Each structure stands twice: as C-alpha cells, then as structure tokens.
C-alpha cells in the first residue's frame, strides 16, 4: 500500500466502524482481529477495540470462537441465514421471542403461544442461545425467573430494575452514596440561604432546589457509571424525605420551564429535625435488645446486666 493511502485513512470512529463492517461483508464467514489490523495499520489498538466493542454492543457484530481464535462476523446476515437453515419450530420460537421485544418473554409463555412441549422448547432455546440469536436475562421482578429476548436488544427497565441494579443485584451502596450526595447538595443550599441574611421569605425560597437542579449536580459529579434520569434522582430524593431530612413541595410551573413535568415542578429542601435524640436513647435500657426479658431474679436482670456495667464504667 502506498503512503498516500495511509494519509487518507481516517481515524474518525464512525469511519472505522463502517470500514470494519465492509470487511465483514467481504468475508461473511468472519474476520479475525489481525485482518482488521492489517487493513488499517495506523489506527491505534485502543480505537480499534472501541469500535469493535461498540459494534458488538449494538448487536451489529457477533463474536465467535474457532480454532484460530476469535472471529467477528456481521450479525444480520448471520441470523437470517441461520434461521433459514433451521426448522420451522425454531423459526416459530424465534418469532415469538422477537415479538416480545426488550421486555422479554418467560419460557412458559413461549409454550402457551407456540403450543410446543416444554422439553422441545428448552432444546430450541438452548440452540438459539448457543448461536447467539437470543439471550436469557434474569428479571428483577421475580428472582430466579429468566426471560428471553433477541440477542442484540437492551433489556427494558422493568427487567433490569433500572439504574439501581447491576446484573439483577440491587446496588444498595450506590443508592446510599447518591442519598448522601443529594442531601449534601440540599444542605449546602439551605446553609447558603441562611447565611444570605435576606428576608425570611427569600431565605426559605432560595433554600429550595428543583429535582432538575439536583439531577444536574449529580450528573456533573460523575459518580454514576450509568445514566441517571431525573426520575431516578426523584426516587433518591424520596428516600431523603423518609429519612426525615428533606421536605418536598409541588408548585405550578410555566410550560417549558426547565425541570417541569406536566406544568408542575417539584421543589426540595434540606430541613432540621424538631428534636434532638430523645432522652430514652441516651440511657442503656433505651437500646437494650433483651429488654422485655429483663426481670429481677430472671436469667437477664438489671443486676447481672453486662450492658449496664459497661455503660456505667464508661
């Protein structure tokens, strides 16, 4: 190849992806990484990998393994030819799964719709899965329940549980981190309002933040690996309400105001509790886990209480 050609070689991600697809069409049985590398020697390994990963994730490419190592293959061509070659039962099941979209379908429902015996369906599902035409996704709605959908689809929120789930596991710590960050934001806003020494009404009003503002703050913090919606943030803000740390007011908003939904806007503000911890919890018996079993003369009694001794000597 000539140097001129090299100069023409683009490093634009879209161009790289398109070139990879062209290569795949030239070699329908699949190409190795080496083929791509040879074709565009001046594209860095990092860029190449990004392009391939993207194509894989949007379902345009398939990753296969043969004796030579990994093979990339165009998907659409692939599936079409595969299904063509398989029998009608397989075709029917594939169709049902395709119709279910990204919400997926449970194997028992496939049985009702196809009228095939469950054993047969399980065989077909296994087959389709191994060909990477479909995939099984664990649903958060009911644990241990798997739903099937086309391989290249992004599962719906109702299946994954949304931002709070990673591989069907609820990410508790993530929620708590967001809870703390949202509160920090509202708290500093309330403090700034107090320090402003403005009239009480202005102070109160400037302590409010819309859910949109909180959402923006969290996005800019960059603590989330996944994209969070404003609704996600409102869910977190709700936990702060139940923590007794935040109050929410709904106000009418002009059409088109940033952060307004259906002419309404939710306002949040950090608030102080009305009491300090109550007297009872400042004393040992207030927190005692065996309180109801405590009787003088009993196995657990005030005079042999280890909590009491520890607390008194502290």
């Amino acid at each position, binding site marked *: 190849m000539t140097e001129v050609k090299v100069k023409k070689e683009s490093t634009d991600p879209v161009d790289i992806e398109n070139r990879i697809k062209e290569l795949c069409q030239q070699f329908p049985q699949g190409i190795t990484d080496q083929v791509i590398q040879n074709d565009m020697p001046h594209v860095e390994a990092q860029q190449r990998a990004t392009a391939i990963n993207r194509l894989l994730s949007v379902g345009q490419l398939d990753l296969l393994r043969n004796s030579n190592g990994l093979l990339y293959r165009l998907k659409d061509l692939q599936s079409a030819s595969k299904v063509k070659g398989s029998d009608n039962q397989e075709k029917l099941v594939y169709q049902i799964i395709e119709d279910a979209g990204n919400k997926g379908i449970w194997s028992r429902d496939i049985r009702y719709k196809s009228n095939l015996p469950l054993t047969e369906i399980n065989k077909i599902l296994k087959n389709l899965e191994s060909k990477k035409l479909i995939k099984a996704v664990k649903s958060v709605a009911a644990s241990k329940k798997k739903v099937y959908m086309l391989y290249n689809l992004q599962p719906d929120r109702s299946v994954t549980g949304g931002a709070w789930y990673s591989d069907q596991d609820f990410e508790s710590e993530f929620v708590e981190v967001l809870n703390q960050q949202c509160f920090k934001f509202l708290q500093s806003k309330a403090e700034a309002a107090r320090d402003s020494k403005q009239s009480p009404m202005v102070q109160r009003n400037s302590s409010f933040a819309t859910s949109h503002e909180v959402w923006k703050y969290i996005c800019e913090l960059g603590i989330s690996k996944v994209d969070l919606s404003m609704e996600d943030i409102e869910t977190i803000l709700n936990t702060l309400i139940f923590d007794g740390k935040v109050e929410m007011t709904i106000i009418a908003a002009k059409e088109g105001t940033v952060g307004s939904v259906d002419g309404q806007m939710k306002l949040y503000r950090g608030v102080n509790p009305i009491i300090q*911890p109550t*007297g009872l*919890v*400042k*004393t*040992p018996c*207030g*927190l005692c*886990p*065996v*309180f*109801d*079993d405590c009787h*003088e*003369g009993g*196995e*657990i009694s005030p005079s042999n*209480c*280890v*909590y009491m001794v520890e*607390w008194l000597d502290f």
Partner: protein
Amino acid sequence: MMAGRGRGQLTFSVEIVGIGKGENLPPSSVQPTPLFPPLDQKPVPLQTGEEAEYMLALKQEFRGAMKTLPFYIRPAAPKKDVERYSDKYQKTETTDNSLEWKPDWRRFPKELRVREKRPQRDKSPAVPKQPKQPRVDKEEIIRKLETLEQKEKEGSSDEEEGEKKKPEEEEAEGEEEYDEEEFEGETDYVMSYFDNEEEFGGDSDDNMDEAIY
C-alpha cells in the same frame, strides 16, 4: 403490657413476612443466642451542661432532704447504744431540717390520729456543749467507726428475725379514745406526732432496702 420478643409468641405467621423455613431465620429460633447479644448501637451520650448538672444536683439533694424529713417513716430506729462520735456533728443537721410536722386535723380524717404517750422530748439525750476547738483524737474516731461497722454487721443478721416477730399492736379501743380537748388545742401532743420513732419499736427491717423486687 409489653409485647413478647418473638419467642414463640408471635402474633403473625412467619411465612407471611416472607421468611421461608430454614431461610434467613430470626436469631431467636435457630441457634441459642448469647444472653446478652452484642449491641449494634451505643446509647447517645447523656446530655451535659449547666441545666443537666443542676437538675442532677437538685435530684440528689431532694432525695437526701426527704430522708431527714418527718415524712420518711422508719419502722423503728435501732437502739443507739453506741454513741457515734460524729453524732455530735450530725445532730444539728437533723434537727434543723426536720421541722416538726403538724397535720392540720381539720383536713385529715380523725381516725388517723395516733394515740400517744406524753411527748418525750426531754428523754432525748441532751446534747453536751462542745468545746470551741474540738480536739480530734484520731484513734477514737477509728475505734468508733470500727465499733459501728461491727455493730452493723451484727445488726444485719438480727434484722431477719426482727421481721418475723412482728408485734401485733392492738389498739382497737385506743384509736377512738383521743381527747377532744387536745385536738382542739393543738398542743404538744400534735407537735410530737412523728417525732419519736422509737415508739414503734420492734418492727425492724432495715434490710427492706435490699428487697425491692
């Protein structure tokens, strides 16, 4: 009433709460829990500061003061056959605080009046005049303290017997025999109403302090 802590007396079925058999069981029903399981949370520190300190002092002083007032009824004071060295000093304290109590009989049922012998104030040991500058004899003090402790030890074993031989003070007639004249006059009779505890001797139960529960 306090509710049970879930030792086989739950008011709901465990399955409803979503706890299947063998799975995720509450501590009490699986393995024997330690008598005092470790605490997850420690009590919040007690409130300190002027108000809390002052209220504490008020509480303790009040409690102390009540014991010196005539309302604090001791069944019977043990006979003082050992005179404490410190008695001389404490005497003032007690007389000062226990202003005599004179119930206003217009406000109380007559049947509660106690028929008493003539006041015996004079009987109480005369307080000897103190020299201006008392000489402290350390050995004397120690001796007194020791005697006293010895005495208390003996005392505590006697007490249990004292409890049993409760005298049945029968005064069915006595109570109604109060003197109308005395009642009107509010004389010494009333003033000494609660003064002399020795009158009600016999019912010694110093160790009741320990038997609250």
